[in-house]
Each structure stands twice: as structure tokens, then as C-alpha cells.
């Protein structure tokens, strides 16, 4: 199995200037790797820093120190120190992300939201839309919603748009932040199946799943984030 991502000694602290510069240590010495064809799960209680780790891997949060090496077009790139254009290129081609909540843009249809990651890679609109329709159908999203902007959708409907958007590409690395939190049992099964297919295709996945059944179904190994916690003793 090929290693696609290696995090080593990653550290994150928030400095809250609005609160007189108080430091909130989040995680330290975060070290793990992700391998092709497997799904790792970040474990530990709420607030221990699981989402922060996903966001650092995606370049959405900065790191104080450490390295996050990613296989990007055959080269090793450090996301932690990459410039903005490189981070955008890595997101376009290498790292996909299913966020917990959908950030809806006014007037943009669910179909366009889900197809966008393919469109920015230059895939023709008909192909991208067909792929989005297939995923929506598989995720049991009612067809009458497809052409509407998702701002007014229910939580579970928005989450399925988000899942379609994340799974539509063939990114070698896929990050999942509680993708099943608002889904019913039938749709959780669909997501479990989508994850299994990604693994079979050789992707490396890293997820946060609070649902025990989903976690048992998809996890190849668990990374215990409590081990990276800083004890929450502010300096």
C-alpha cells in the first residue's frame, strides 16, 4: 500500500487576541500517515481537536510547526508551508473534503454545487452534471430539489449535497468531517458503500465519525487524537 500523506510533529495553538492574547493549545506532536486503499478514523471526545487536524490537512487552518507531506502529481509537497496557489492546486487535484456543513451560495443549484469540483478541473458540464445526478439518485435526494439552491434544504438534504460534492472526483485523498451526522439509516448505508468503493479504487480516507456503527463499518484503524491533546493547560 502506497503512503499518500504523512503528518509529522504537527502543532496547533489558537491565540485569541480578542481575549487579551490568551493561548488555546489544540494539538501537539500530531504524527500519522494515510495509505492508499484504507480508511483511518480520528477518535477521541468532542473538542479534542479532530476537526482542527482535518482542517490543517486541507490547508484551511495554518500549523504552528510540523510537516504535512502530500503526494501531489508525483511530488512530495508540504501543505503546512505551501503557498496559497499550491494549496488550491492540491485541493483541486489531490485532497477532497466533505465538510460538516454546506456553505450555500445564493442562486447556485444543488446540481452545480455538487458538480463544481469537476467543472474547475475542466470536465465538460454534461458529464459533471450526469455524475452529480447519479450520486444524488444514489443518495436518495428527491429529484425535485436538484435544480434548487440548497440554502433552504433540511440538514440531511444539505449533507447529501455535500457528500455528492466530495465524492464526485477521484481525488487520491479524501477527508470526511462527520459525513453521516444528519442522515437516516438507509442513507448511512449508502455512504458506507461509497467509502468502500473509494477504498477499492485506491483512495486514502481520513474521517471523523461519531456514529459507532458507521465507524465499525469503515475504519481500518483508529488514530487516537487524545494522545496529541495538550492537556488544555493554557500557558
Amino acid at each position, binding site marked *: 500500500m502506497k503512503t499518500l500523506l504523512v503528518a509529522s510533529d504537527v502543532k496547533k495553538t489558537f491565540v485569541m487576541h480578542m481575549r487579551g492574547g490568551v493561548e488555546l493549545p489544540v494539538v501537539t506532536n500530531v504524527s500519522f500517515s494515510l495509505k492508499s486503499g484504507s480508511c483511518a478514523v480520528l477518535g477521541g471526545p468532542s473538542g479534542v481537536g479532530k476537526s482542527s487536524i482535518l482542517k490543517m490537512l486541507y490547508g484551511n487552518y*495554518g500549523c504552528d510547526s510540523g510537516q504535512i507531506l502530500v503526494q501531489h502529481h508525483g511530488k512530495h509537497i508540504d501543505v503546512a508551508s505551501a*503557498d496559497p496557489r*499550491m494549496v488550491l*492546486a492540491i485541493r483541486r487535484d489531490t485532497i477532497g473534503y466533505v465538510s460538516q456543513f454546506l456553505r450555500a451560495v445564493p442562486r447556485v443549484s444543488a446540481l452545480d454545487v455538487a458538480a463544481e469540483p469537476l467543472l474547475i478541473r475542466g470536465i465538460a458540464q454534461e458529464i459533471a452534471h450526469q455524475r452529480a445526478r447519479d450520486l444524488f439518485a444514489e443518495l436518495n435526494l428527491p429529484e425535485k430539489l436538484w435544480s434548487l439552491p440548497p440554502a433552504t434544504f433540511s440538514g440531511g438534504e444539505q449533507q447529501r449535497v455535500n457528500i455528492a460534492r466530495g465524492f464526485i472526483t477521484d481525488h487520491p485523498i479524501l477527508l470526511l468531517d462527520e459525513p453521516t451526522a444528519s442522515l437516516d439509516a438507509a442513507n448511512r448505508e449508502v455512504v458506507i458503500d461509497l467509502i468502500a468503493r473509494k477504498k477499492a479504487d485506491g483512495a486514502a480516507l481520513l474521517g471523523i465519525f461519531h456514529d459507532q456503527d458507521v465507524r465499525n463499518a469503515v475504519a481500518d484503524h483508529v488514530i487516537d487524537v487524545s494522545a496529541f491533546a495538550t492537556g488544555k493547560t493554557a500557558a
Partner: protein
Amino acid sequence: MSLSQTIDAPVGKLASAPSQPLLSVDNLTRVYGKRIGCADVSFDLWPGEVLAIVGESGSGKTTLLNCISSRMTPTCGTVHYRMRDGESADIYKMAEAERRYLMRTDWGFVHQNPIDGLRMTVSAGANVGERLMAVGNRHYGNIRNTAIEWLSRVEIDEDRVDDQPRTFSGGMRQRLQIARNLVTEPRLVFMDEPTGGLDVSVQARLLDLLRGLVSDLGLAVVVVTHDLAVARLLSDRMIVMKEGRVIEAGLTDRVLDDPRAPYTQLLVSSILQV
């Protein structure tokens, strides 16, 4: 590490990405007597990239925009632009005629107030057609057809082509100004608070339109805004200014979700939730 170094950090090679910036701004400074308009601003802008300049009123955003778009001469510093022939030119060392031609053809400037960017007493069609004539088009029928095509792209009905923009609503005027700027297929567009003063439903429509045009045409854009939601929606990268200086810069979602500088944290925490 200084901020200007962060912004100028070397860029990794990407097979599909253009290898050279379209616009390079180096240590740009503009002072008004003893007061600073903007100071020591440096950044590169690549083809197809959208850069937002944010900060509160008086932070130097508009001074900076005017200096890089050749509308105001900087006190010191340079602005280089990569011309269509691939050569990089210092815009303040060009002949005045050459600079004007560049502004009329390869660049666009969208003002906050459409009155500053439109001619209010000639027809909508003429407002769009005028830029076409500036690049040498002379055939009336072709100009009119292109103008009508652009009006429809910005969602203005064809039957308004002969009306003057003073009969248009604020949102329509702004869309007309955008059509007038984009008709010559510029590669770089400057925007100064393009959605300022519009009510939110009109603003949403305009933002959606801008997003579509920017990605369809592969435009590079420098957009000044005090509205962080507009910056999030439109831009790839962001520069935060305070008292004329760049205090934070980087990927838009990182600056907004993980702000470092005290002032950026204040700005982000001041956004009203609906």
C-alpha cells in the same frame, strides 16, 4: 519573517498553471503629505486569480487599487504587467497613450458607483459599444449585436438597449457597467466595492453573475471590499489592510477561518450572523 516575504514566497511548479504572474506589485507606497495612503505593499497576481483587498474605511484599500490600476501615481514602488506579447512592462514607465490603450482594452475598472463608470446620457448599447470602438470596431451592426449579446449576459433585456442608464435601477446600472468593462475581453479587472450600496437580493444576483463571468472568462480580478462575505464568495486569496499596511495575507478561507493578526480577528469576529 516579514509579511511581504510571505506574500512573495516562491511558487511551486504546476504543469497546468501559468508560470509567470500577470501583475507584480513591489513595495508600493503612496503618501499624502505626512499621512500614509498605503505603504510597502507587494504581491503577485496570476492569470485567472481573484485577489480581495479587505479592511475598514480609511485602511488604504482604494488608494492601493488606484495606484496599481494607474489611476494614481504612487510615491514609490513599481507595478509590472505582463502584456499580451508575454513581455513584462512597468506601467509607470509606459507612454501615456500606451497606458490609456491598456486601460481601455486589456483592463477593466468597475466603480462602486456606476455613475463613475458609465455615461449616463447615452444609451445602454452605446455604453457597451464605446469600448468596442476604442479597440477599432467600426461596423455599426456588429457593435450593436455584440452590445445586445453582452446585455443579455448580464441579464438586461434586449429591449432596453436604446434606453439611457439613468432610467435603470442601481442593480441594472451595475450590471451594465460590468458589461461595458468585459466587452473587450480584458484579462485583468479592478473592482472597487462592486456590490456596495445594493440591497441584499440584488447583491446576491450580482455576485452570482460575477462568479460565473470570472470563471467562464478566466479573468484575473483585484476586488476591494469591506464585506468579508463578498471576499469569501469571490476571491482565492486575500490581503488585509490596516492604516495603509498589509497586516495579513493568504488563502481566503484560511485568513477568515484561522485569522492570526489581532485586527483580522477583530474583523472576522465582527461579522453579523443571520
